[in-house]
């Protein structure tokens, strides 16, 4: 039993401290990913194994490049939120939880930016 009134809980935005922000961001990125994942999938699957020149040509096209960049942005934002939820569910030690959440955030940003940078390099 905790000595916290329901009004205090509401004003403090609940146990996560950020209200519905995380939940809402996950929905927004999920909606974005429905078209983006499908648009990303087919040019990527065709480019696989087609040779270096063909890959450079495929992602030299603005449409494919922009789709790939938007896909990486949405997917890694969504992955960060999703893995955060998994970590919070299974890791209860506060120190370990905080450390994993930091690693998760940094790794997802790093990979997302690396993917976007690679597509930009190919496209330009």
């Amino acid at each position, binding site marked *: 039993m905790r000595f916290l009134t329901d009004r205090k809980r509401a004003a403090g935005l609940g146990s996560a401290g950020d209200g519905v922000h995380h939940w809402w961001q996950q929905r927004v990125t*999920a909606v974005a990913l429905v078209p983006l994942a499908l648009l990303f999938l087919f040019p990527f699957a065709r480019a*696989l194994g087609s040779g*270096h020149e063909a890959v450079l040509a495929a*992602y030299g096209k603005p449409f494919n490049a922009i789709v790939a960049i938007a896909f990486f942005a949405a997917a890694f934002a969504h*992955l960060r939120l999703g893995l955060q939820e998994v970590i919070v569910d299974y890791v209860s030690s506060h120190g370990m939880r905080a450390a994993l959440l930091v690693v998760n955030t940094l790794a997802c940003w790093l990979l997302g930016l690396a993917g976007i940078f690679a597509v930009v*390099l190919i496209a330009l």
Partner: protein
Amino acid sequence: MADVNRGNRPLSPFMLGKYYRFQISSLTSILHRITGVAMGGAALLVVWWFLAAATGPAAFARADWVLTSWLGHLVLIGALWALFYHLLNGIRHLVWDAGHGFDLETAARTGKGALIGSAVLTLLTVIIVAMG
């Protein structure tokens, strides 16, 4: 909301088995989590492949060889199924969030739809891509 039982009731996760009979909704739920995390691993491979393509022919040849190897194909087709399953079940989640499809019959039907639909879409995609 007054909640007299806060703190000493069984809480998610780890509900399966002891508190919760295994059924199609448990299966679709845990698969959503497994496919989400697994796609994180696949995303690593995809980013590596793009970075290699941006780096040059030698680096690209190495990454492309790994992804199109026997094992690479197996992993990528697994990731393809994960994507289709997670996408279909994700839409199911979004529909629930909008307040629809919660009754047991509908939930079981859409769950089966996500399972069967993802297998069919994976097969179709593999065929379409393999035929060029």
